[in-house]
């Protein structure tokens, strides 16, 4: 999704520096690479519980009629 970094935020004014708690001088941030995913089909409204639900992969092969992994591996 994103790469996390610690940034040294560039605060130029010493007044600003004086008003900040120290931990602000080394903030952790991540750049979200796929912003468009936040507002489309990654999640949908759940019909059953009035909330949103996310698309998630299956933890197993539903069937093994195709050996898709073989294809995936050969690509690498």
């Amino acid at each position, binding site marked *: 999704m994103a790469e996390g970094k610690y940034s040294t935020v560039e605060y130029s004014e010493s007044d600003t520096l004086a008003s900040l708690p120290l931990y602000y001088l080394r903030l952790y941030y991540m750049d979200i690479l796929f912003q468009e995913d936040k507002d489309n*089909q990654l999640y949908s409204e759940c019909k059953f519980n009035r909330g949103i639900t996310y698309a998630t992969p299956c933890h197993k092969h539903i*069937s093994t009629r195709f050996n898709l992994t073989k294809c995936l591996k050969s690509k690498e």
Partner: protein
Amino acid sequence: MSKYCILFADCIPVRGSRKSVISDLTRSKTYMIPNSLYDLIIQLSENPIDKVKGTIPESQYPVFEQYIKFLEDRELVFYTSHPERFPALKEQYEEPFEISNAIVRVDTSQGEALMETTLEQLEQLRCKHLQIILEQALSIVELEAIAAKITDYQFRSVELDVPYHESFTDESCMPILKNNRKIQNLVLYNAKEDRCVTQANFRTLEGMSNLFYITSGAQDLNCGQIHRNLFLSSMEFVMESKLKNNCLNRKVSVDSQGVIRNCPSMSESFGNITETSISEAIEKPGFKKLWDITKDKVNVCKDCEFRYVCTDCRAYVEDPADIHSKPLKCGYDPYKGEWSDWTSNPLKQKAIEFYGMQELVQVQETSTSQ
């Protein structure tokens, strides 16, 4: 205080007849190790490392050091004076709903009513994952429409299998994946090549959704493959394997005629969806009878080091008269620790004939000999 060197709880050691493995559930890796290392790991889990070393003849120290280094380098072990504070993972696998995954075959030439009934019922059962196999060739526009329709249902992931057509290209198919993120795999079968195009898709398996071109067909006889690259080393899969049949558990299939089965490769029917609902069918006696056949109860598999990471198949087994015999399409012999081509194994010829797989096997032989 004496130090213990123990495996992290998410690293599961499994002993086979000739070889062992360690499955790293967090990092999705399975390491093959000699049985002597497995035995050492068990000793180390019960005794301080110095005590274990004391029982080993000095001539074996280099091997001992090498083994410990192997475990350390892969971050499989840590040191502690209090092993009692690190309990093993509880072996538990539960889901709130009876059906978690489904295979649906659709013959679009007969209209989409049957598919709609099936998907509506699966949705009501809160089935999470769907594989849907379209049997008839269709145009890209029709494919787009059907993909959008399927995406509207409350599934968590969908694999959509479609017969390949010349108009299906990366350019025409990738937008379907982009616009329907629940579709994790779009598989074009009977294609002219085996190829995969991947699109980054946050929150799906390996961060990707995939477009596959696959030369093989989608017939049910193709299913039940056993292969190293189908191994899965994850918490959910390993736990389900330990406690349930890792393929058939919470599965239902509905074919293009509406016949309800546990798995499409099995002959036993539990009714037709035009007369029986899926929720009625799954409660019929016998529907779940194979769900408790774990790998530990399958002959040969129970002695195999891969038993919790490998898929199972009860539809095609080596001895069709014995439901506890090993999957037909497995070419691994855990007593030798060797892989071979299952199709040419003389012991399997009877079963191949029984299931009518002779043609299929010939196709595989020609393709492997290329």
